[in-house]
């Protein structure tokens, strides 16, 4: 293939002499992922390039230029700041503030005990309650979180994975209490367990029962909550863990393939659940490489859905994605520089055609963001949307020799990884072998070495270092844990214990069989069984997962 030869012909990185004997800086001309970049790109870099085949019109096959014909002329991306901290009441205040400032969707960050399926009063939750997100242990907490926020008027994204079915059930129960029809609510549960084993490591159960839970939500959503995005197949965390751009792209898409395979095996119709799948990518520093990544993602996903899974519904071909600027790129040193980094990353996501975007706040290398910092982050998106002019035209960089070359290279690199994982027997087999974990660990170590050797410069960290004044950071009250534990104690005293035990027993029986567990989990949360009680019941049946650490 022509593309392949081109990659091999890339010049050595430390090119110091350009044509005509002119000197170049003795720098490493590579992307943040280590991909060599040539001095100049010309039509010669795109042999046989075909507009219709390789690009197509936006909204048309293969969707390289975007999933809609009008893109941001039709509708701007959703500005969705991920937030949550301390108690449900405090987070509720932050959500109302963000909505009043023009944010257009909510995105809930949960604390670590919630992510791991422990109640706020569990011994392992000590010191962690409300620290990295909001503490939600029961429906009562979820009710407080959405107090005064009509769930049919906002779309809500929830970053929850291993216990996603439980937290989603709580949200659905809140909708019931608000008298809102499930047909009318929309939002996303991250629900991507595979990347937890690969990168973020917030897993509870072993891979196979976890996958069953995910597919249960697919099936339930398709029947009862048709506008819900039942999964956000996430490369974000894979990248944060140290993957290169192409590894992020490849592992995310291969995870996506795994979910679709499991859905099809359950008997679900790919034309029906395919359009409910969405993806989530990182927006890192390397501007063009990132834009190429999003464009390649659309192309590959369309082909996977149509050709590998036979989807006939064109909406099932669309790679709809959320993007978040790279938390890992934020520096604790000279934190105001992070505003600039975030703006560049956000611009890449927009030029790459994202459907929604989270911009990180300048203080997040230190703590969860203050209200002031998160406002600047939101304003960054608004400036891009309303002042920069980039939202006026679709795929403005399409046709750039560099960008088209990078898009083809990204595509090829990702497809090669996917083929390798197919040959291993799929993503679960690859995870059990530690394959993606090893690849990521190697990339992150190589990057750190490049930073130490100053082959990669990080402004304010390994070059241009100055002393600094500390910035204000958000401190989470240490008493949040006690407060939440107190609420749980009162809840356990006042709820109907008999109904709790009955629904948990029914869930246990269901878990031992192969019924869809969503209705049973809903029964549990409606009578205020706690997250910890529900997850413990499932742990009793499924067991708990422990990884073999690879260095």
């Amino acid at each position, binding site marked *: 293939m022509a593309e392949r030869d081109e990659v091999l012909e890339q010049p050595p990185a430390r090119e110091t002499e350009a044509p005509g004997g002119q000197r170049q800086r003795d720098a490493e001309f590579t992307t943040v992922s280590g991909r060599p970049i040539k001095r100049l790109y010309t039509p010669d870099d795109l042999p046989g390039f075909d507009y219709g085949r390789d690009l197509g019109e936006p909204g048309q096959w293969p969707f390289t230029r975007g999933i809609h014909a009008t893109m941001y002329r039709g509708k701007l991306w959703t500005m969705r700041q991920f937030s949550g901290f301390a108690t449900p009441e405090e987070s509720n205040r932050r959500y109302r503030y963000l909505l009043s400032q023009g944010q257009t969707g909510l995105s809930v960050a949960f604390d*670590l*005990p919630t*992510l*791991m399926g*422990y109640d706020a009063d569990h011994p*392992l*939750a*000590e*010191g*962690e309650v409300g*620290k*990295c997100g909001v503490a939600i242990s029961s429906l009562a907490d979820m009710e407080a979180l959405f107090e005064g926020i009509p769930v049919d008027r906002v779309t809500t994204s929830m970053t929850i994975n291993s216990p996603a079915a439980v937290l989603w059930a709580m949200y659905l129960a809140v909708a019931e209490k608000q008298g809102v029809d499930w047909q009318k609510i929309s939002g996303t549960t991250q629900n991507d367990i595979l990347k*937890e084993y690969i990168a*973020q*490591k*917030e*897993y509870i159960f072993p891979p196979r029962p976890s996958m069953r839970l995910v597919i249960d939500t697919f099936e339930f959503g398709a029947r009862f909550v048709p506008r819900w995005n039942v999964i956000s197949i996430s490369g974000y965390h894979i990248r*944060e*863990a*140290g993957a290169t751009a192409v590894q992020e792209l490849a592992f995310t898409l291969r995870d996506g393939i795994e979910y679709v395979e499991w859905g099809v095996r359950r008997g679900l119709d790919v034309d029906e659940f395919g359009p409910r799948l969405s993806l989530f990518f990182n927006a890192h520093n390397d501007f063009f490489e990132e834009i190429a990544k999003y464009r390649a993602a659309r192309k590959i996903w369309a082909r996977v859905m149509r050709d590998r899974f036979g989807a006939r519904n064109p909406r099932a071909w669309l790679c709809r994605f959320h993007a978040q600027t790279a938390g*890992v790129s934020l*520096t*604790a*040193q000279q934190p105001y520089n992070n505003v600039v980094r975030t703006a560049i990353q956000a611009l890449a996501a927009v030029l790459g055609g994202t459907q929604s975007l989270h911009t990180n706040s300048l203080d997040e*290398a*230190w*703590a969860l963001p203050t209200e002031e910092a998160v406002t600047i982050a939101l304003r960054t998106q608004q400036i891009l949307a309303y002042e920069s002019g980039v939202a006026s035209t679709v795929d403005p960089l399409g046709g750039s020799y560099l960008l088209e070359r990078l898009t083809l290279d990204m595509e090829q690199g990702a497809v090669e990884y996917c083929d390798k994982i197919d040959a291993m027997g799929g993503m679960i087999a690859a995870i059990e072998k530690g394959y993606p974990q090893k690849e990521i*660990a190697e990339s*992150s*170590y190589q990057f*750190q*070495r490049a*930073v*130490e050797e100053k082959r990669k410069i*990080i402004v304010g*960290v*390994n070059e241009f270092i100055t002393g600094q004044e*500390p910035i204000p*950071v958000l401190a*989470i009250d*240490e008493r949040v844990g006690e407060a939440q534990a107190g609420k749980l104690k009162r809840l356990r005293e006042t709820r109907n214990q008999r109904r709790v035990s009955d629904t948990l027993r029914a869930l246990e029986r269901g878990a031992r069989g192969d019924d869809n567990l969503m209705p049973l989990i809903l029964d549990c949360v409606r009578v205020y069984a706690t997250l910890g009680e529900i997850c413990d019941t499932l742990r009793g049946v499924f067991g708990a997962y*422990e*990884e073999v*650490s690879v*260095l």
Partner: protein
Amino acid sequence: MEKKIRVLIAKPGLDGHDRGAKVIARALRDAGMEVIYTGLRQTPEMIATAALQEDVDFVGLSILSGAHTTIVPRVCQLLRQEGLDDVPVLVGGIIPDADIAALKQQGVAAVFQPGASMENIVRFIRENAARKVTRDE
């Protein structure tokens, strides 16, 4: 032959972000040290037991979740109970400036904040290992 420096790298608490812990573990190993990596979700008790059983010279804790204010004092206390007063504890991760003094008071030898270089961490361990040998003799 000189005895290799033995370092326990541990991830306490519920946080699963292990990029830093793994990079440091590899850097120390590449620097010729013996590294024991505990893996994720270690309780303070498990860490103290591992430090004792593995007869390590240093304990490195990686925490990014904000739980260091609860977890680190507990690890230091348990190490003392096990008679490991001479094993320096290093903490790496997202540790605000305001918390450093309190951590050092609890017995932490050094705190490495975001952006700390592998080279500095290696150097700190080597220098303190040399000091320990001199003191022991």
